[in-house]
């Protein structure tokens, strides 16, 4: 269970949110919506521990994530709005190095299957990533979700530059993850096409 307790966050002079309380249970998804600049990404970064809140704390299974440190990092998969893709490496190399860095090494075949699952065909696996389109790069980054065994997923605008087919595939993958008692926080301006009983919406007003 992920819980935010009276979070406050400012960027520069601007107060983004104060006294924000939210609870995400296992098997459910928190969709963070709001206008541009309302602090959605900041909230996600606080959840990931990249950013520390001005006040309040984030609890994972009842413990403060700033105290759990690496133990907490071992619980989550974070995909930010930057893809973390190296232009000079192939999609396959990118995926495998990202997984081995995260301590979830995968086999060559496992990585290929993950890339295929998100709709990148085999010939593309061997091209340098710099020749891929934005949508294809996004797919390479999201392919990690097929290999991740972590319970908590933090996704920042995962559907940006994806086509409808890929959006559906990723949504399906999210659904499977939730059914396996995973939880997810997704920052998005689109509707997540999941059953409403497992989706909790948080609107930030800025």
């Amino acid at each position, binding site marked *: 269970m992920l819980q935010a307790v009276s979070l406050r966050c400012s960027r520069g002079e601007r107060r983004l949110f104060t006294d924000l309380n939210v609870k995400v249970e296992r098997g459910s998804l928190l969709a963070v919506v709001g206008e541009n600049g309302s602090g959605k990404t900041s909230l996600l970064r606080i959840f990931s521990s990249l950013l520390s809140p001005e006040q309040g704390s984030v609890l994972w299974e009842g413990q403060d994530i700033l105290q759990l440190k690496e133990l907490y990092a071992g619980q989550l998969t974070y995909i930010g709005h930057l893809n973390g893709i190296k232009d000079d490496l192939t999609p396959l190399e990118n995926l495998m190095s990202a997984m081995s860095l*995260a301590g979830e090494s995968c086999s060559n075949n496992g990585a290929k299957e993950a890339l295929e699952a998100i709709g990148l065909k085999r010939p593309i696996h061997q091209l340098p990533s710099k020749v891929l389109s934005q949508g294809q790069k996004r797919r390479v980054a999201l392919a990690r979700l097929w290999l991740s065994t972590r319970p908590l997923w933090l996704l920042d605008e995962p559907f940006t530059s994806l086509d409808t087919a890929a959006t559906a595939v990723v949504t399906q993958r999210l659904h499977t993850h939730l059914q396996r008692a995973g939880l997810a926080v997704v920052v998005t301006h689109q509707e997540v096409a999941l059953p409403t009983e497992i989706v909790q919406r948080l609107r930030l007003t800025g």
Partner: protein
Amino acid sequence: MNGSSMWEAVSGIIRRDLLLAMRRRSDAAMSVFFLVIVVSLFPLGVGPDPVVLRTIGPGVLWVAALLACLLSLSRVFTADYVDGALEQMVLVPQPLAVLVVGKVLAHWLISGLPVVLLSPLLGLQFGLSGESLGVLVMSLLLGTPTLSMIGAIGAALVLGVRGSGLLVALLVLPLYVPVLIFGAGAVTSSMAGIGGEANLSLLGACLVLSLFLAPWATAAALRIALE
């Protein structure tokens, strides 16, 4: 979080960075190219007097190696910072300082080690004797990793800042001075016949100290850069 998964993450980072360097050879070749040019221009500018060349040789070689290292510093973290790979590095279930050691080691293998290997050849241009060449290689072997370690702190501190190249030079040059003095001093004293051991020991001490402290400082700077 045990030793083997820590090693896996570090070796993964080193492998990835070496692979990236192989794909972009021009970047890696730049610091070596710079070193060769600077060191080769000195005999042309100063004149062919062997006594003068031998006197300035150690200093010129060391200054050139130091500047070559400085030149390559911007590459340590910038690309990872821009494309988001750094965020992923920070969110790895291993201490960030350990990953920093991997990054710096990869950086040294790409831009420091070639400098060390090439130095005897360049030393010959200045008429250094066999023994002095040995001391030169030893001093660079101990000194260049120290330069990379210290430089990583500066490189991490200036991430996302405009005009970072100049700023990083201002930040790290004062810290480089002791390494330069001990390094060039080792070669000079071996040429004077009093042996370079004392200076080499000091260089070794600098290396150990920087290995111990720099990764933590760099990790803290990286976290600040990502906030």
